[in-house]
């Protein structure tokens, strides 16, 4: 079975929700739609307090090349535009909408299914851009930008990322099982942008056999190859997935298209299909609600802007023992400081956990066991990076490959001394960037 060559770990999978069908969550009493749901500049809010909006109406306009549109996820009245906690941990401008209960689509949206073959490449990319589609795996890179690589780069490999290697998360898994046709259609649309010259793959970890079977049935007749991958974290990271499927290595400072590759998330492929064929902007996504401390664990189809408090209410009781609520997966997610934060386009999961490690965590000294070096998928020396960061040797740390770290967290996971290796590396990255900014200023 294929997998990436260097490093990797196998954390407990805990896919508790892998067989629960996606449930549609009703529109809550209030929606908070963040203007910062993607990489790059936040969108510019287009609406004011008191305005009526329709479902799918553009309420935030992409500000610049790397930015994305934001749409109202139901019809209703704008209650205000003000900063609000973002699931990423910071504050971001957000549009508050009080739904009117009619859930009316704006004009020209949600049309009868059209054949994507009738659209030109430019039309497809324009539709993806208008629909505000971003990478739904976590980084939130605007998809239209990713789909238009520089003309001198030729793409020969398109990979759909169904690895979902994070523990707990099953959002992509359920999408693959329940709507394989949409996934495949989305992939076909993406492939058509590269004149059909590129070979399309779907990479799925072997712990999702039902998804592999479902997709094989739909994909094989279209010449798309479904690859079963050995379950290993971080297989879902772009660089590792490319390495696992094609054997190519993305080096320092290189992007996937430098090696002829393009990777898209399962959710993104479905969003692309819906945007191109059904004229639906990205206003809802599947969120895995899981963790040991919530009574009923579900895969929920929630509107963008639904607050985590409402989602928790929809899924049942939270036990008293909860001490952390994680947005995203437990390896690369963020711990929330408030449940007021809303679902954004990149929210793949919401986990209610009792992290006993965080209570008694005390960083101990490195005992030089070398486990972090063994598991690092980027062949770095995490212990050395962390030590150098602690000593604030920011000139030296760049030479140790600081910027090559993908922050997958494997090193921190295995460290017997419970050192916050990734956090130190992230700290160094921030301070190095600050210094460079100050120098250039």
């Amino acid at each position, binding site marked *: 079975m294929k997998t990436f060559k260097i490093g990797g770990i196998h954390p407990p999978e805990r896919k508790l929700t892998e067989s629960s069908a996606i449930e549609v969550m009703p529109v809550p009493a209030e929606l908070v739609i963040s203007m910062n749901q993607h990489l790059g500049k936040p969108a510019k809010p287009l609406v004011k307090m008191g305005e009526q909006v329709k479902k799918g109406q553009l309420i935030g306009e992409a500000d610049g090349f790397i930015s994305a549109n934001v749409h109202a996820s139901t019809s209703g009245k704008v209650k205000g535009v003000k900063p609000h906690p973002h699931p990423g941990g910071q504050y971001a401008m957000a549009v508050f909408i009080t739904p009117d209960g009619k859930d009316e689509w704006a004009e020209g949206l949600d049309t009868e299914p059209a054949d994507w073959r009738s659209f030109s490449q430019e039309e497809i990319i324009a539709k993806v851009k208008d629909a505000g589609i971003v990478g739904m795996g976590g980084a939130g890179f605007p998809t239209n930008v990713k789909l238009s690589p520089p003309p001198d780069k030729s793409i020969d490999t398109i990979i759909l990322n169904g690895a979902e290697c994070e523990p707990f998360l099953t959002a992509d898994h359920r999408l693959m099982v329940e709507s394989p046709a949409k996934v495949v259609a989305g992939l076909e649309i993406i492939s058509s942008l590269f004149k059909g010259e590129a070979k399309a793959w779907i990479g799925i970890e072997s712990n999702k056999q039902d998804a592999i079977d479902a997709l094989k049935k739909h994909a094989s007749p279209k010449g798309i190859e479904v690859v079963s991958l050995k379950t290993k974290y971080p297989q879902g990271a772009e660089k590792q997935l490319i390495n696992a499927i094609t054997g190519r290595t993305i080096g320092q400072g290189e992007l996937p298209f430098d090696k002829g590759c393009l990777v898209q998330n399962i959710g993104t492929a479905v969003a692309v299909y819906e945007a191109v064929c059904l004229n639906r902007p990205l206003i809802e996504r599947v969120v895995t609600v899981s963790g040991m401390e919530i009574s009923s664990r579900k895969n929920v189809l929630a509107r963008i802007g639904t607050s985590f408090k409402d989602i928790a209410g929809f899924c049942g009781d939270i036990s008293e023992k909860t001490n952390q609520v994680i947005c995203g997966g437990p390896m690369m997610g963020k711990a929330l400081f408030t449940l007021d934060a809303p679902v954004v386009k990149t929210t793949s999961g919401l986990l209610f956990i009792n992290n006993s490690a965080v209570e008694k965590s005390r960083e101990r*000294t490195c005992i030089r066991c070398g486990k972090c070096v063994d598991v690092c998928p980027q062949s770095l020396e995490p212990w050395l990076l962390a030590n150098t960061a602690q000593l604030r040797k920011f000139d030296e740390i760049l030479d140790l490959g600081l910027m090559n770290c993908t922050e997958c967290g494997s090193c921190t996971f295995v460290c017997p001394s419970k050192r916050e290796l990734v956090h130190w590396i992230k700290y160094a990255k921030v301070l190095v960037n600050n210094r460079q900014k100050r120098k250039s200023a």
Partner: protein
Amino acid sequence: MESVKLKVSYAPFVRSSDSIESVMYNVALALAPATVMSVYLFGMYALVLNVVAILSCIGFEWLMDKARKKPASCLDGSALVTGLLLALNVPANLPLWMIVVGSFIAIAATKHVFGGLGYNIFNPALVARVFLLISFPAAMTSWPVPAPFSLGLNVDMQTAASPLGILKTDGLEALGSFTLMDGFYGTMNGSLGETSAIALLAGAAWLLYKRYITLTIPLTLIGSVFLFTGIFFLIDPGTYASPLFHMVTGGLIIGAFFMATDMVTSPISMRGQLIFGLGCGLLTAIIRLWGGYPEGVSFAILIMNGFVPLLDRWDQNDQKAKYQKKSEKA
């Protein structure tokens, strides 16, 4: 739900169950067969030695933490392992005060002066053993003859030289009735824990299974001793002992699996570990064949411990070369 108090930390939020404690206690567990074997072979006094060594190591660890105003680390298991290893590396009739002195050297003078666990350059138990060997050569080289099931606290056991000692002073013929099986089971003269190869190998298998050690260092170390002594055995079987004799005698097995693999004092990368194991093996063989001491494992490992920072620096420079070149190109 309102009563839930959220705590924020940085990803990842799941951690492996490994900890310093689990590593150390598993090493201690892996040493258990050898410890039991030592009590079986040398009597209850061996148990007393073990207990005194462990308690004094933990005591000195506690004192040093207090003196250095550091959080208490005396129960993290590292002092336990040091004490156990030290006791297993001394003869079964060593006076108790000597083992306490050894514990002090191991914990205070080898570990804490460099900054405590993780910062020591040399293996604490080995430094203590070598310190005792040089300071009290008579007490450290009068090996009691094993007397299985002698449960008394009998310190005045019959003593004799170890097989390696006999080989060094009296030559190959003097070894007489010694068979390889004696070394394998442990019914030979030697330190408490080093005599029984089978008990040590059982412990090592546990550590390998739990993946706390890898085979790189033990295999290269034992392999290079085997090769080196084998070459000389082939040249002159009349003077040199067979490589198999060198495998089972002295502290080779305990050294290769438990001392050289100490995480703190061994290199991190595979390449470093290969060179480290090779160096340990060659030095051991050289000392055993031509050195002034009959046994060379402790010295060999300590000498190679000194090279570890250099070996690590080599990897770091490689890393730097790799990324500097890349960033210049970019």
